[in-house]
């Protein structure tokens, strides 16, 4: 299982099925939270992910399996809710205060 230290995260990609709806919405919100920490956030369809896409993949739990297949060497953090999911806090905390993420 891949793992990454918060301080090594410079890019995050939000993946969804089409890459035109929910991932765009979430990318906008997370850019505001993670941008001040020097992290850029982008979005992509899950099928176009690879290990080169970003340091960390964030996607809905229903797509996590596909994301891990597409980017097997990259940490995939799943979330259940688009608003207020604890996964977003976990990522921000790891980036800001340090700590490792895996999955």
């Amino acid at each position, binding site marked *: 299982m891949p793992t990454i230290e918060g301080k090594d995260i410079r890019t995050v990609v939000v993946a969804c*099925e089409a890459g*035109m709806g*929910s991932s*765009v*919405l*979430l990318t*906008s*919100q997370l850019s505001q939270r993670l941008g001040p920490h020097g992290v850029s956030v982008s979005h992509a369809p899950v099928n*176009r992910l690879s290990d080169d896409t970003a340091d960390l993949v964030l996607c809905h739990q229903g797509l996590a399996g596909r994301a891990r297949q597409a980017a097997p060497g990259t940490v995939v953090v799943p979330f259940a809710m688009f*608003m207020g999911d604890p996964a977003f806090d976990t990522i921000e905390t790891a980036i800001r205060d340090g700590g490792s993420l895996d999955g």
Partner: protein
Amino acid sequence: MADASPTAVPLLQAEGVLLGCTAPDRDAAVRVAGQLLVDLGAVEPAYVDAMLEREALLSSFVGEGIAIPHGTDAARAFVRRPALTFLQFPDGLDWAGQPVHVAVGIAAAADEHVGIMSRLAQVLLDPDSLAVLRTTDDPQQVLDLLTD
């Protein structure tokens, strides 16, 4: 985010805003949102099927009574021009177990709509704006909140 061309059709226009809608269920609501995209000349009819397909795969509910139905990655081929539609359901609608009052239909070929989605992301965090979207009977108020 500015349009590439000053003559470009706005992503969301008054003709794409339907207030006071009712629908028996989620799929019916998705069809209305999709058909409106067809009527606006934004997508081919096959895109509506892809919207239903996407919805069955994973609900487009994003929270705060809002869903954002859209097609699949493959269905980008059916998009003629990027556009959004806005449907308001004052009585609410069961959206795969979640209450929805607003459905924003999306047709995008690339990233033309990122600006308007950023506005929507902001609105999702603002209870006053959300209340306006759920209850207003004036399409201009919707346009004011979501467009420049």
